[in-house]
């Protein structure tokens, strides 16, 4: 049993983002990096499956990016992945989903992965394209946004989230690619021995060209902040003053406090 997990390193979304000089994406100075949240569920699910199979499965964690992504690959190893693959691409953040998928599929082709887990989307680009594009390139079945996964001897049953909290249950056989929705499981905290072990693990480093990087299909420009509500008010200060201001605004702008008191 051969499992691949694709992980992306993204900035903490609480960070303050500033466009880079070309205006195509964010400037990286001062950003704090971590594993894309969706991908943590993918890693956890792959490791749980491996553990349930007792020694006959191996999990490979793959990430694309500059040297800083090694930290995220080691995080996946510390959570229980067996091998790390780093596609060393300093331009990764500006690649479009087509290009990222070309590299992942180029790596996976011919390596006989029975299952590929990815996050449903990245938190920074939110394109939700890469997983399905990889599956289409490899000619394998795929299901997006899974919230449950059960493996039975070469087949699997998954739940897929739809609108309004509705879900559907689907059955399929390996090989397959699954993109993971938030809440699929509870990603583990690595233990200290596993963190130490992951620091010493040797990684496979590959160039983008060696795994078949293709040309982009879309261009990106004018990266900028989402405009705040132009009619909105931003209030700062101590809690008591703020509370008095907000009560006064609610009294004048809404009817929820009612004349003369709370309903």
């Amino acid at each position, binding site marked *: 049993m051969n499992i691949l997990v694709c992980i992306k390193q993204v900035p903490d979304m*609480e960070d303050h*983002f500033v466009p880079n000089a070309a205006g*195509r*994406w*964010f400037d990286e100075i001062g950003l704090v990096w971590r594993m894309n949240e969706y991908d943590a569920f993918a890693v956890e699910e792959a490791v749980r499956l491996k553990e349930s199979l007792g020694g006959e499965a191996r999990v490979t964690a793959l990430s694309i990016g500059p040297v800083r992504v090694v930290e995220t690959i080691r995080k996946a190893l510390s959570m229980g992945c067996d091998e790390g693959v780093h596609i060393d691409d300093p331009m990764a953040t500006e690649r479009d*989903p*087509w290009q990222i998928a070309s590299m992942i599929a180029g790596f996976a082709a011919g390596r006989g992965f029975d299952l590929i887990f990815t996050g449903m989307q990245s*938190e*920074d*680009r*939110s394109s*939700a*394209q890469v997983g*399905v594009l990889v599956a*289409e*390139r490899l000619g394998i079945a795929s*299901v*997006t*946004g899974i919230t449950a996964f059960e493996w039975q001897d070469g087949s699997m*049953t998954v*739940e*897929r*989230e*739809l*609108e*309004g*909290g*509705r*879900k*559907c*249950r*689907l*059955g*399929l056989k390996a090989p397959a690619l699954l993109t993971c929705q938030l*809440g699929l499981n509870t990603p583990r905290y690595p233990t200290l021995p596993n963190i130490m072990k992951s620091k010493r693990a040797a990684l496979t480093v590959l160039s983008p060209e060696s795994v078949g990087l293709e040309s*982009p*299909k*879309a*261009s990106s*420009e004018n*990266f*900028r*902040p989402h*405009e*705040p*509500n132009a009619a*909105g*008010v931003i*209030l*700062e200060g101590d*809690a*008591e003053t*703020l509370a008095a201001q*907000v009560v006064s605004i*609610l009294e004048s*702008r*809404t009817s*929820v406090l009612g004349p003369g*008191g*709370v309903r």
Partner: protein
Amino acid sequence: MKLLLVGEVLDGAIVPEVAELFGFAARLGAETSMVLTGASGNLPAFEGRLYRADAVHEFDMTYHKRFVLAAIEREQPDAVVFLHSSYGWDLAPRVAFAMQAALISGIVGLDGGGYLVESCNGKMRRTVRPLTGRAVLTIQPGAFAVAPMQGSPEVIDIDAEPDAAVEFLGCIQPERGVDLSRASVIVSAGRGVGSAERVELVRALSEALGGEVGASRPVVDAGWLERARQVGSSGQNVSPALYVACGISGAIQHLAGMKGSGFVLAVNTDRDAPIASVADVLVVADVAEFLPALTAAIQARK
């Protein structure tokens, strides 16, 4: 410009957001056609060609891919447009790969001949342009005003081969029990609340305002509140007179479920948080400090 719109059906009925596909086409002044499978009721009213089949083949995405490709083959559109829904985001990359075309996901606006999309969980935006002659697009539900539907399409029956790789085993209906759709005040807890214990601060404010408690997805996933209280495209759509977003950054899926609110008060330590795009008042403060003060101030009015 010729657009092929991909319709979407739930339980035999066309989903209402399909009218937004026509709204998007109207914004572009495009000639439109539609492809639609599995609709048993009324067909959409518009002037153009409607490629249709009776088959349902729900969740057989390979069938749906072949069906849409069959319509593309006949229609030769400049772009194929989906809703950015669980159907659209799953199907669009399959169609784009078959066409070897650019796919631009989650479009929220038009911008100088390009398409506006959100980045960084909705904090940032950018303009994306296809580099291929034909493109596949998905539009964010709620982003484009609906167009008035009139006319009668020329109906063309087409079909495609089903595929057996993925077996549909049934649907699971959502947990209900809390109806937030009629609440006049909703106070919602987000990840920024910080802990299950602090959800009590949200509950206290909600009680002081005579409202209901809502939640964003991470709070439900963490088990701090029950799933029946989730607001957003994966939960309930709400339109209270007052919506208080406590420690909610405002991911687009959450905003989609609450932007019909009359007045939005947001409490967040991050003044760049995308909730600011819909907030009438953004209080830049820690939920743990501000909420008890606001609850006390409201109670003091009694």
